[in-house]
């Protein structure tokens, strides 16, 4: 082996050794992360030994799981077992923040995208600025220490991601979290706002969907009020808030004469007819001139609106009765075991027209609702006709069976006599 070749071998050996070392160190680091997240933190070791862990402390806290120690927020030296050294000013110990400091305290990291993107590149970092614009934030700044800060909703030492069903800010838990303060009459007394929102919400269509049916597509408090920038929706924004989900209803309403009039009168768009927290399931009698019709809250006989309400109600009722009649016939077809597949498709189309007509109600224009209800009525009548044909066909089958039975019976009787005749021989 030449000297040049020797050098090459040594170089390769050194590179290999360095690589093995790096990979080994990485493996150790990864291995270390798999150990209980709080086991290497001297703060926790001592506080646990002293039975002095903060209230609500949870090992699966999102920060702890990401490798952030107590010192990440409170400062100090988490490697020292000496209390004096670990919690000294020299070590940067800041202790527990007072309430007014909490938003800024969390915002040190959460408003810094350069820091946050290490953990979650897509995370929003505007929570603090939003909070400052909220009622909570403004009041806190003005010295009201009763309002919510970050920890009121997220907790302090057992913070879980909002997607975790155990989290206090998971959609299913948000109403209860808000209700913790907003449902307490004693706590809220000085603010002069109702404390029945949770009960109203829970009894309304959205609350039932979210809390009973666990349908997270249904809005919780923060979907209408905002979360960090929580604020009651204003007159101008309320229809936009509802329109986030009920897009067509909102667009029809905004473009309608009623929308214009509401804006002029400074009325609360959707809320005027549907309420706010306790939003009842809608029904066709909400429109029209009957006792349950919300139109009659403003309109009186002789007005254009009165006539429009009556026409739209009549249009909806005509479709609903045509649909119900066809549905009853379809049930009959199903009961006798005849083919109801085509009828089912037509019924679906008719029902689709009904849904669209009910949405078009928000145009408050009978000329727009009418064609849609007529379309639905036509489909329902087509289905009804098909159902009648099937029932008629069943009758044909029964008659056919009757005729076959007569024929077979004649044959049986003839055979019977033939057999008797043969046996008699």
């Amino acid at each position: 082996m030449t000297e040049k070749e020797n050098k090459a071998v040594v170089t390769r050996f050194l590179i290999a050794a360095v690589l093995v070392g790096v990979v080994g160190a990485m493996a150790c680091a990864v291995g270390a992360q798999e150990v209980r997240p709080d086991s290497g933190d001297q703060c926790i070791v001592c506080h646990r030994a002293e039975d002095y862990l903060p209230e609500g402390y949870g090992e699966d806290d999102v920060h702890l799981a990401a490798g952030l120690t107590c010192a990440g927020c409170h400062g100090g030296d988490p490697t020292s077992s000496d209390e004096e050294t670990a919690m000294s000013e020299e070590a940067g110990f800041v202790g527990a923040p007072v309430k007014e400091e909490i938003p800024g305290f969390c915002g040190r990291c959460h408003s810094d995208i350069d820091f946050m993107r290490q953990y979650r590149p897509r995370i929003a970092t505007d929570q603090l600025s939003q909070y400052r614009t909220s009622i909570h934030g403004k009041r806190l700044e003005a010295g009201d220490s009763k309002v919510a800060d970050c920890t009121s909703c997220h907790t302090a030492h057992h913070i879980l991601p909002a997607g975790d069903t155990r989290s206090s800010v998971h959609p299913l838990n948000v109403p209860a979290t808000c209700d913790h303060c907003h449902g307490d009459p004693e706590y809220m007394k000085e603010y002069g706002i109702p404390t029945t929102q949770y009960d109203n919400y829970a009894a309304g269509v959205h609350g039932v969907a979210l809390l009973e049916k666990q349908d997270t597509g249904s809005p919780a408090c923060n979907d209408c009020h905002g979360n960090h920038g929580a604020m009651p929706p204003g007159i101008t924004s309320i229809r936009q808030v509802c329109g986030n989900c009920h897009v067509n209803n909102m667009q029809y309403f905004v473009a309608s004469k009623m929308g214009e009039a509401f804006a002029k009168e400074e009325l609360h768009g959707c809320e005027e007819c549907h309420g706010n927290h306790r939003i009842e399931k809608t029904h066709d009698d909400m429109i029209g001139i009957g006792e349950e019709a919300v139109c009659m809250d403003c309109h009186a006989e002789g007005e254009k609106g009165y006539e429009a309400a009556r026409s739209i109600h009549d249009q909806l009722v005509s479709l609903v009765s045509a649909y119900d009649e066809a549905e009853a016939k379809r049930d009959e077809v199903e009961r006798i075991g005849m083919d109801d597949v085509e009828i089912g498709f037509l019924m679906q189309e008719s029902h689709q027209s009904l849904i669209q007509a009910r949405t078009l109600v928000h145009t408050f224009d009978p000329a727009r609702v009418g064609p849609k209800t007529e379309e639905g009525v036509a489909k329902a009548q087509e289905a009804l006709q098909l159902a009648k044909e099937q029932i008629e066909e069943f009758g044909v089958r029964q008659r056919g069976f009757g005729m076959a039975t007569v024929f077979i019976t004649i044959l049986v009787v003839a055979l019977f006599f033939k057999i008797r005749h043969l046996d008699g021989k």
Partner: protein
Amino acid sequence: MIKGIYRWLDDRFHITPLIEFMRHKYVPVHRHTIWYYMGGVALFLFIVQVITGILLVLYYQPDEASAYESVRFITTKVSFGWLIRSVHSWSANLMVLFVFVHMFSTFFTRAFRRPRELTWVTGFVLLTLALGFGFTGYLLPWNELAYFATKVGTDITGAVPLIGKPLKILLRGGEDVTGATLSRFYAIHIALLPAIFAALLFLHLLFVQRQGMHEPEYLQRLPAERKTLIPFFPNFLLRDTLLWLMVFNVLLFLAVFFPWELGVEADPFASAPEGIKPEWYFMFMFQTLKLIPGHVLFIEGEVLGILAFGVAGVAWMLVPFWERRTRPDGRTRPVTVIGVMAIIYMMIMTIWGYLV
């Protein structure tokens, strides 16, 4: 002219001796004669199955994507398709019922004894083939209940010791119930089983014709002049025809007033619906397997159940070879007790299966 055709055929195929054979074949008339007709009814229902089955094949498509739709097409668009499909389904069930009745009547009248051992054995195999027809045909509409029932059924096959697993794979055409299962069930249902069934049925009928109807013991002891006999042709055959016509009328009644449901199309990715039940004739076995504990001593409960049914089935098939003649003291014979217990067991388990 008819006579001319007859003569022409007779010259070539010697039909006259056959007719003479049938004319001189007599059927005894006694208080158990009614049971002679059960096999005939089962035969009639098999013929109905063949005819309606051929008509269904004209439109049925044995493919995962189109099987369900093709059955729906048959029942909604094809002229009289609803009738053919319903008659096929009802007739299948009635056929199994009458085969069971036929088997038990043969059992209790001890018609399986010498010299009819092979008639009994072929009959028993025909019964198992009829069950095979039911099992494979049930899947063909590719609806939800059938899909999951087949899954459960083939899973049970998989629990058979030694050959279970490969048999399950062979039946399913893979690990799971898929379109491959459907196409092989179709092939088994319309080609394999009919071929074997037809051959065995031919043998079974040939044996019956050669050996004549079995006479109960008390009749055998009577002198010839005290026995009532009727000619097989045409007297007995006309009685058969009369009964067949009545059964056909019942079939039409069921098809018109209780059309066979199609159900919801199978979705292999959906979770199994509640209350999956096999066809009624498998229910007693299914319920038994459900009741056996997971483990009995050192053996798996399901395996034990399958083995027990296997042994019982083979013993039942071989009954002509181990059953002993009448006890001289006239007491009830063990084989009758076994038969009665088998019926009671099957009925209780079936009813239990439907109630739970």
